[in-house]
């Protein structure tokens, strides 16, 4: 037998194994138990796995090889391209919200990618970027701000629509299975969150700008039946936290929306997520008090929706600094003790680490260089806001700006370096109160911010923070601000946008750029294995870019 034939025969013998490894889901679809595994070959949930670390164990692409990344394919997802659109929805008229922009996570399961935009889901072949199916939802209207991705349970796919439906599709064909209304459109809710699958739960959140209550819900993946609903603000007499509001009416219109996916700790069965700003956003006169459980890290039992603990990251917020960041689960040794922690770099410029079993404070520190709204730390680790830094008629000079030091685009953590990575935008603006009505304004109205353009930006950075101490390990200066979700890898490369229109691979040890390409990315980078090679995927508007090593 020739050497070639031996190799050929060997490869035939290996073929079933290869097929199995390429098709872990098989006909039963994506086993929810597989989401418990650390992130590596696929990208089966919003953050890749439940930890929120966005740390991939893959290391073909490392600090040395990253310079050899090459373009595998470019693919577009745009309804104008046509190609077998499946149409659903309850809207009476069609509304395409202009440009398609893929901002959320693109799940990768079984060699298929699932990018989304508001009202749209696509299935795309991860090998060449071709469209397999496209589902389009006819909307009733509402705020079309973005969509953060899908969730997949076995052979079913789930996504939220701006007009508040949870829609389930057959993952293979894109055909609709059912849709249920998850929030009241009349009350101006709008939904963007990527559903998070935990066991047999589909966890969904929603957003709103009008003064309505926030909540998180769990649906059954088979039936679409509501399992539980957790309100993030007190809704009835006797509810915990009501003492932090002047009255029940204020609490019931207090906001605290759940629009960004959280993380899950399988040992405690706690789903931990960040809640949004209290409402009215900028005028707190009608909601004196701490306003629980807005702007908080909240842990709920995944089977019951009952709250286990909370930690408020922005007390009585009056700057629209939602705490709706995806937190990160971290295991670390502090003072010789092994600790189970959860960390978040909040929009207000403060970094917090708390015990993820008890919610007790471990670290509070300022990472936003000029954040100037605080009066000091309380004994429980929360930060006392300075009322003089609210919007006032003659204007108060506030840092950060409304968009925050960080925003919802996800941070990352590498267990190799032990650092929490985040974007840091240190902007200033003058904040004028324009609605001095003692009742407070409504929604996000009642203020007029004056930004200073580039002048107001006193430094934008890629920043590494030690979650055990809250101290900044290093800052890499960026010439542009804005979002920029992060991806950390075992290869020691940190992928992100640089805020100036480049997609960059940074050295996770010091932030030095190792590789870049001029693509102005609109989502957070992801990585996975396909056919034995590590791929790196980003989106820019309606275009997907696949990179790999040959």
């Amino acid at each position, binding site marked *: 037998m020739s050497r070639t034939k031996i190799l050929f025969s060997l490869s035939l013998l290996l073929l079933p194994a290869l097929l199995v490894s390429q098709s872990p889901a098989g006909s039963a679809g994506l086993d929810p138990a597989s989401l418990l595994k650390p992130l590596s070959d696929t990208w089966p949930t919003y953050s890749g796995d439940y930890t929120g670390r966005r740390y991939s164990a893959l290391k073909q692409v490392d600090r040395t090889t990253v310079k050899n990344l090459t373009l595998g394919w470019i693919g577009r997802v745009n309804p104008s391209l046509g190609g077998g659109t499946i149409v659903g929805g309850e809207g009476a008229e069609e509304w395409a919200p202009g440009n398609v922009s893929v901002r959320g996570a693109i799940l990768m399961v079984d060699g298929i990618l699932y990018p989304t935009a508001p009202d749209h889901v696509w299935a795309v072949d991860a090998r060449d970027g071709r469209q397999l199916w496209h589902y389009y939802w006819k909307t009733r*209207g509402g705020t079309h701000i973005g969509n953060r991705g899908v969730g997949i349970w076995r052979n079913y796919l789930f996504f939220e629509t701006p007009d508040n439906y949870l829609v389930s599709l057959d993952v293979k064909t894109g055909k609709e299975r059912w849709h249920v209304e998850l929030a009241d459109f009349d009350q101006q809710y709008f939904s963007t969150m990527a559903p998070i699958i935990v066991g047999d739960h589909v966890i969904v959140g929603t957003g709103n700008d*009008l003064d309505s209550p926030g909540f998180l819900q769990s649906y059954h993946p088979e039936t679409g039946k509501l399992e539980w609903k957790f309100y993030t603000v007190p809704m009835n007499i006797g509810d915990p936290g009501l003492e932090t509001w002047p009255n029940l009416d204020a609490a019931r219109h207090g906001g605290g929306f759940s629009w960004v996916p959280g993380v899950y700790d399988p040992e405690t069965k706690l789903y931990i997520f960040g809640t949004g700003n209290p409402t009215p956003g900028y005028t707190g006169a009608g909601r004196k008090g701490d306003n629980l459980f807005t702007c908080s890290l909240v842990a709920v039992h995944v089977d019951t929706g009952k709250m286990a603990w909370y930690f408020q990251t922005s007390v009585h917020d009056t700057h629209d600094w939602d705490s709706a960041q995806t937190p990160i689960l971290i295991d670390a040794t502090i003072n010789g003790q092994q600790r189970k922690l959860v960390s978040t770099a909040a929009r207000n410029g403060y970094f917090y680490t708390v015990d993820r079993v008890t919610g007790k404070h471990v670290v509070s520190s300022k990472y936003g260089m000029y954040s100037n709204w605080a009066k000091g730390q309380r004994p429980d680790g929360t930060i006392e806001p300075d009322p003089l830094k609210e919007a006032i008629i*003659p204007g108060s000079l506030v840092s950060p700006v409304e968009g925050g030091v960080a925003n919802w685009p996800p941070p990352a953590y590498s267990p190799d370096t032990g650092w929490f990575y985040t974007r840091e935008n240190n902007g200033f603006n*003058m904040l004028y109160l324009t609605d001095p009505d003692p009742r407070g304004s409504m929604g996000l109205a009642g203020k007029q911010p004056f930004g200073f*353009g580039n002048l107001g930006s006193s430094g934008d950075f890629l920043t590494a923070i030690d979650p055990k101490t809250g101290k900044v390990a290093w800052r890499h200066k960026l010439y542009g601000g804005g979002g920029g979700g992060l991806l950390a890898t075992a290869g020691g490369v940190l992928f992100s946008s640089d805020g100036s229109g480049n997609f960059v691979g940074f050295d996770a040890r010091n932030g030095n750029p190792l590789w870049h390409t001029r693509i102005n990315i609109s989502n957070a980078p992801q990585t996975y294995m396909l056919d034995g090679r590590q791929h790196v995927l980003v989106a820019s508007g309606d275009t997907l870019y696949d990179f790999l090593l040959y």
Partner: protein
Amino acid sequence: MHWTLLVIFMTAALAGQQRGARGGLPAVPGTARPAPANFPAQQRPIDTALAARGSTLYGTHCSTCHGGDLRGGDKGGTNLLRSALVLNDQAGELIFPVVRDGLNNPGMSPMPKIPVNQEDGKAIAEYIHSVAATAQRQGGPPPGPPVTLNILVGDAAAGKTYFASKCSSCHSVTGDLNGIGTRFPNPRDLQNSWLAGGGGRGGNAKPVMVTVTLQNGQKVEGQLNRIDDFIVILNLPDGSTPSFRRNGDVPKVDIRDPRAAHRNLLPEYTDRDIHNVTAYLVTVK
């Protein structure tokens, strides 16, 4: 809230301008179509005659508690513009029974029965909906009557002292700032402008200049067009825009931002400093 929302709303506003063109076009997903009004409260047709009658009834029976602007009042009436019951009501079917029977919910101020018939209840509901339809984006209330807000709360004498110590090395009220108090009819614009170093809205700040020193010693100087870790681009007087690859500190790039002093002051000011300087500058006629 989200920082891209502004862009979204600008897009929606542009789409709104084309609203008149909406008609019986075939429904093609993805083609640029005019947007429907955002929220149900804005999508419903309003019977203006009915709403006008409701307005009078509202003034008689409701405004004392719920406020003339429907945003609630001192007597405990709730803000109707954010009430789930109001927002879910279609044509008085939810509102009228509450008006007729009153409400007594735990934790809420009790609402008395109002002696109106169903037709009047429907008119009141229509009026409430007509106001809700004028609500603004991001949950904002309907625009109220214009209010004059006085931002001049500072001490002009203290502002003059501050100006002398922090600003006068670059600026003079008899030189570049001569008559600045009359150049801005609105003190808020004046305050924003001086804080921004003249580079605020409508300002004409001097450009940022950059000098690139190449490895052969040649210097190229121009206005900064763009810079990041990988490239620096200049605007030259001849209209050309040369670019240079950056690799760490090579080539040497020297940026001179005439507003750096203003930027460096942002973390230093107190709000009182700012208000005092503004109070002083409005007196510079």
